[in-house]
């Protein structure tokens, strides 16, 4: 008899946490409303650490990880949808009734472009990419980002200006 091959990995719990938090938020708000990603990430953190008292990752570690996971989830989704719209995929993507009235179709393209620009940014300086991830995808404040990345505020502000300039130059060239 074969034992099931275990392919569980740690992202599961994290994704689950993020999703649960999202569902709760969405119940509270109108469908189609935008999410407050900061609140989301924090809620996921509280949930997961409450799940198992021992499982508490250091908060900053968790937030850093969660912002990467958020980006992954959102960009993955955008790419799937993008593929479907180009007629490339056969998956039924329009599962969500609300998305027919599609306030998000422009966002799909934007997010893919943002992701691409951020990767380019990472080539210039990986710190900038991480910073942009915290700010854009986890919606963290500067103060919060400084804590999570353990960076002094002054240099973080300077880097944020750099990141903004490069992203703007890439996304919206003059």
């Amino acid at each position, binding site marked *: 008899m074969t034992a099931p091959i275990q392919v*569980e*990995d740690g992202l*599961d719990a994290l994704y689950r946490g993020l*999703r649960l938090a999202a569902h709760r938020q969405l119940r509270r708000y109108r469908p189609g409303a935008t999410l407050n990603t900061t609140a989301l990430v924090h809620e996921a953190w509280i949930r997961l650490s409450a799940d198992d008292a021992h499982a508490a990752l250091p908060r900053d570690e968790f937030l850093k990880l969660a912002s990467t996971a958020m980006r992954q989830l959102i960009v993955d989704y955008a790419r799937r949808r993008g593929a479907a719209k180009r007629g490339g995929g*056969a998956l039924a993507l329009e599962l*969500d009734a609300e*998305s027919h009235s599609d306030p998000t179709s422009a966002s799909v393209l934007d*997010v893919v472009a943002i992701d691409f620009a951020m990767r380019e940014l990472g080539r210039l300086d990986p710190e900038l990419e991480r910073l942009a991830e915290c700010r854009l995808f986890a919606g963290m404040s500067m103060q919060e980002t400084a804590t999570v990345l353990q960076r002094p505020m002054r240099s973080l502000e300077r880097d944020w200006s750099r990141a903004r300039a490069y992203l703007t130059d890439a996304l919206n060239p*003059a």
Partner: protein
Amino acid sequence: MSPAHPHAQEGQLVDQWLRADSLFTELLELPVAQRAERLAQRCVDDKPLEAIVQRLLRAEERSSATLDTASDAVQALAAVALHQTGDDGPEPESVVQVGPYQLVSCIGKGGSAVVWRGERNDGEFQQTVAVKVLRRWIDSDDSVRRFREERRILAALEHPNLARLLDGGVTPDGWPYFIMEYVDGIPITEYCDRERLDIEQRLDLVQQVIKVVQYAHQRLLVHRDLKPSNILVTESGQVKLLDFGIAKVLQADTDDSPEHDLTQPHGRLLTPAYASPEQLSGDRVSTATDVYALGVLLYRLLSGRSPYRAQEDAPASLYDAILRQVPAALSIRVLEDDQAGLCPREVAAARDSTPSRLARMLRGDLEAICQVALRKDPEHRYASVEQLGFDIERYRKQLPVLARAGNRRYRLARFLRRNAWGVSAAVVLPLAIVTALALHVDRLSAERDRAAAAAKLAKQEADKAEQISSYLVGLFRASDPAESRGRDITAVELLERGIAQAQAIQDDPPLQVAMLHVLGQVSFALGRYQQANELQLKALSLLQRVSERNETLWADVLADLGETSFKLGDLSIAEEYYRSALATLPETGLARRGRILTNLGIVHIVTSRYAQARALLHEALALLEENAVATAAHATTLNALGTLLSREAQHSEAIDMLQEAVTIRLDLFGDFHPATSVVRSNLGIALLEAGEPAAAELELQRALEVDQEILGPTHPSLGVLLNQMASVRRALGDQEGAIAYLARALEILRQHHDEYTPTMAAALSGLGHTHLSMLSFDEAADYLSQAVAIDEQALGPQSRELAIDLALLARARSGQSRYEEAEALLLRALDIARGLFGDEHALVGEMLVQNAGLKWQRGDVASAIEDGARGLAILVNTEGAERPYVSEAAAWIESLSSGNSEHPPPLSDLLL
């Protein structure tokens, strides 16, 4: 001449971009009003730079709107994305058929993949497979291509202990999948406990695992995810490894820079039982990562427990333990009650043993083996899984295991790191290649500027240089992650690739020679002297077959052979090569002649033929100064002359000259360059010989920092530097520090098999000297006898080093109360020193004082006073009366003369 190479343009672009970024960053620090003015100042004659920075400044000004839009887009999508990727979103579970296989039942499910049992049934032929569908979205041609490439490589793996990869692809819906051999087995840990295997039987299984991992490593594949659920054992007791290389595919995704994709290593954060420190911190994954995971497996199979006392289901504390805690000793751990509820009796019973017997068995060797495999720093683990396997075999054959010797060395190394310097963050080997290339091109362009007679040749060479450069640049190109499968390509791999390509050149002998020659230089820069030597020899033998004779290239190859032979410790052979290079070189090659003369001079210094060395170096200096002052080669000659002066105890002249050499190199290469370090280290030694150890330490410390960073921690040049640093620490009275440096130097030298080189002798001599200072005469005598033997072999019967080592050995013998031997050794030393330097050299003076000590031991006070006074006079003359050793010696001789001969003579601090 062909037009500028496209790669060169690309390089310029990158350079311009980096300059723009740094200027832009600088401007951001200023108040907005002042930016324009500063920008104009900085870009007076660089309009393109100004344009880029201007563009960035404007982008920054209007960035709020763009960033707001971006942020809105993200937030808008977040809601749907998180909602949809929940239970009802597109999932790989929707896949029902892959190729000819029908997916019949789900056998595993997780965050990164779903595994199915697949069956193919076309009437007569029935086959069961495992199908792993990845939760990854692949939608670009490029990533599909990369995925296929990866699959092709994995499919080529064939080993009885490896679950074969049968096929793979991407479903029409975009889900990548792998089809693998279906393995009917259970995880290795469960199997061992179920069968109640004893330690020996468990080690058998581990060896099977090691063999198959080794098989894959030899094909440059790292598993990255070794854990019991990936290591199954079948009913017949055969190990089957699953998922080789798949973790890599999962990680690589579509990005070309896997180290930026933090998801995977951090994704494991929550269940990291088998993850290595480097995976948790997102550092480079290598074969050492698998060594670590095998260490955890071994630990668990032997003790039934995790190496860390942290709870496995408590990621935060486990995470911390993996990064920081030293694993608990096996033999202690096995006696502990585990939080998981395992009691020692059960654990022992599952191993067909009792707790105390089991603990006894694990104590010592097996414990040490686990510790070495589980070290935090990948570089400190077993160098390969094969080495881990060997050590387990040694344990089973009751031979001493390397891990225990290694552990002692490791503790030394840790001491060293704590006390001497921080660990260098990154090893930037490829820089060495770039440097070699740059030097080559640099050399050729210098040649181009030479007199008109050389112009034609220079042009040919420049063309060749360009051809070679583009060839080498091509090698770097080929190291893009698609081809290297995301691993960091090391300089050595590039080099090997280059060599393979050079050897494959069929129809262009001149190009092949030039390639082998340059690759030999690269090899040399990487410290691979034996290989460099072979490459140059190959170039030489090909040159003989090239019809059009290129004397300059011929001479270059010969000169390089001289350098490799020199580094390999074959001094007389080096000398011959240099002489033939000089004889071959055309009249016009003045700068080259100067360089070769310098190298020949250095051989003469090392073999203590100082007068000839001086003549050669002066000739070189004259040629170089006629050519152009303040070149790199000029600095080399000054460096050699300075070293010569220092050996002749002309301290202030030596220091001046070396200082000038440092200044030239600083101008040419900057501080952060091995070429500057070399000169700096010689300056350090000259300062030390002049009695200024503190100043010496500053120079050597800097040289060491730079070389460690650039050349990496095991380059042979570091062996020399560590040696020199040890002399400084000894002079400062820090014997332990000196020993630690020397231990590291010896380790490096042994790694390069430099067993019989002057450098090795110097390290052994240093150890002997240090032990003398600690009054451990037996050890000192041991090391110094070895040093003497190598000196005789490598440097001949008459060298300064031999004289010094003989004198030191004499002191050790005297410490062992073997006075007659001591006297004979010292007389030989004196003889050599007088022959080399005449009667008035400081070394001679010092040996006379030492001899006075020996005579005093024998009770011959009158002769002692006579020798002592003679030696002292020389020392006062050459070193000055105020150096501590000289004044101590004076006081001692004074006490002898006044009839008070209670105290032994002082120990010298002059001999280096």
